[in-house]
């Protein structure tokens, strides 16, 4: 009996100690983790917009996120957008609920710190506090708007779609006219040497400069990538076998309206990325237009 008591005490103490250690480490690292992740995404986005160490981003460049949720309000499906608004110079979020057909339903101001809005959990708490308890809530996607001063620079769309093996996660950058600015592959598990080549500049940069109308009709062709095009896409410095700026421009113009050249031996991955990009752009442009209509009608003071 005494032994059992001792064992229990011992186990409890060690569990408590372990829990304290893990808990404190978690508390310390969690912030750092989030910060790092945020910085990472930020860097990628800046990179997509063409900013890097040599060409730092302007001070007045800001990113605003729109979060889209689907609501199940006792049988009726609703879309809910968390839209950043300016309220007396302060950044806040407001929730706009619309029907699938695009008609305005209701709107709520949200009590959420814009910094904390990065956190899915925080957002959910804020949403729950304004919605009816019975409403079903599920996060759909988000879009990021890059704004410089008053001018919209770009839309950044995190998106994921099934590839050859598992999901491919990308960020697609569109300009205000929905022309592709750039594509960055964030995560994938494609085969090395085949599907994994989607991260290579010669593939992902093919999407650059495709106008929205061209993008809609974009196809994947199974022809060898012309060498000059490849050189242009890889964009090495002129002293490393790259091209001069003028040449680059001419080549870009020449191939601007080309279809996507598939990666040799990885047609499935090429197709997956292409159709994923097309879908993301198409859906986003449609939704943005709907949302903007509602915003205009409601006279929301959005920050973008």
């Amino acid at each position: 009996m005494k032994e059992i008591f001792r064992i229990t005490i011992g186990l409890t103490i060690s569990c408590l100690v372990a829990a304290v250690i893990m808990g404190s480490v978690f508390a310390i690292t969690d912030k750092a983790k989030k910060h790092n992740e945020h910085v990472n995404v930020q860097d990628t986005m800046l990179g997509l917009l063409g900013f890097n160490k040599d060409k730092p981003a302007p001070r007045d460049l800001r990113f605003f996120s729109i979060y889209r949720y689907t609501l199940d309000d006792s049988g009726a499906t609703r879309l809910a957008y968390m839209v950043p608004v300016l309220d007396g110079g302060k950044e806040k979020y407001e929730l706009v609920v619309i029907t699938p057909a695009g008609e305005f339903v209701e709107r709520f101001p949200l009590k959420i710190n814009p910094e904390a809005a990065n956190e899915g959990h925080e957002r959910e708490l804020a949403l729950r506090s304004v919605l009816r308890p019975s409403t079903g809530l599920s996060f759909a996607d988000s879009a990021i708007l890059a704004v410089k001063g008053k001018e919209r620079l770009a839309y950044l769309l995190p998106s994921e779609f099934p590839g050859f093996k598992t999901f491919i996660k990308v960020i697609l950058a569109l300009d205000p006219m929905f022309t592709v600015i750039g594509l960055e592959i964030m995560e994938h598990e494609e085969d090395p040497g085949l599907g994994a080549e989607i991260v290579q500049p010669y593939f992902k940069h093919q999407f650059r400069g495709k106008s929205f109308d061209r993008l809609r009709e974009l196809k994947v062709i199974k022809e060898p990538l012309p060498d000059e095009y490849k050189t242009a896409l890889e964009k090495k410095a002129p002293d490393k076998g790259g091209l001069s700026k003028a040449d680059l421009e001419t080549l870009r113009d020449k191939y601007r309206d080309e279809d996507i050249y598939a990666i040799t031996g990885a047609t499935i991955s090429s197709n997956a990325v292409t159709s994923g990009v097309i879908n993301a752009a198409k859906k986003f442009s449609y939704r943005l237009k709907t949302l903007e209509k509602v915003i205009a009608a409601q006279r929301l003071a959005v920050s973008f």
Partner: protein
Amino acid sequence: MSVERIMWTVVVCLLPPLILSVFVFGIQTLFITLVSVASCAATEAVTQKLLHRPITIRDGSAVVTGLLLAYVIPPAVSFWIPILGAVMSIYIAKHLLGGIGFNIFNPALIGRAFLVATFPVAMTSAWLVPIRDFSIFKYAGGGIDAVSTATPLYVLKHYGMAEVTARFGSTLKIYGDFFLGWQPGCIGETSALLLILGGLFLLYKGYITWHIPVSILFTVGLLTWVFGGDKPFTGDPILAVISGGLMLGAIFMATDYVTSPTQPTAKLIFGAGIGILTVLIRLKGGYPEGICYAILLMNPLAPALEGWFRPKRFAPPKGAVK
């Protein structure tokens, strides 16, 4: 009767497809094959020398492996690709495991799987359009990129049957061409006719039995017919059987003594397993052709199958047999 005799007979049976491939894909296929055979033989000799074993190139098994390895390589690859494949086939898949008789996996196919993993692009896209005018030097001097094409199974998998007929001609023409050997594909796998003739000769000599090839071809045909089309029972079993490496695999690779079971029932199961896996990979998998991996996947089952299907004992004593 001797191992040498069997192996060299297999070599002879394998030669007609090679000769044909010179006329279909050009003279460089001969060169690739020679490189493959030579490097297999050389690897065998060097390995056996290093391991202080008697050198047995003369028994022809390395030559057979070399030939088969070359036969499952596309005709437009660089010549050093088969050299690497040969090292993998003979050194790793054969001699490390204890030499002939213990190579659990078919060495030539391990070589091919290794090459597909190492040179995915070359091994899956260096196909050539068949030559029809005997200009066998057409592809010899390079310029291969411009003429590379797709295999029928690739087209079928990614674009459907309609595209196959659009590219290769009417159904009847396809049957004729493919059966005779005028289809894009690996060096030695295109001609169903010559492979069948070789197989029949081996069958006549009693070196192989019908069980494995027939059960593979039957299973593939049946399953393709059932599941291969848009709707059930609309697949094309004939095309499935005469295109790709199925014939070569079924007749010359799956029947390899070491890597297949010995008893008739076990052979039928083994063949059916290969057939099912082939169709599974062809229809649902990531590759247009599945016979190579299907055989490799069934090979390790051969020891178990042999254990399960022993010959019927004359009259075993009571309790001696499980």
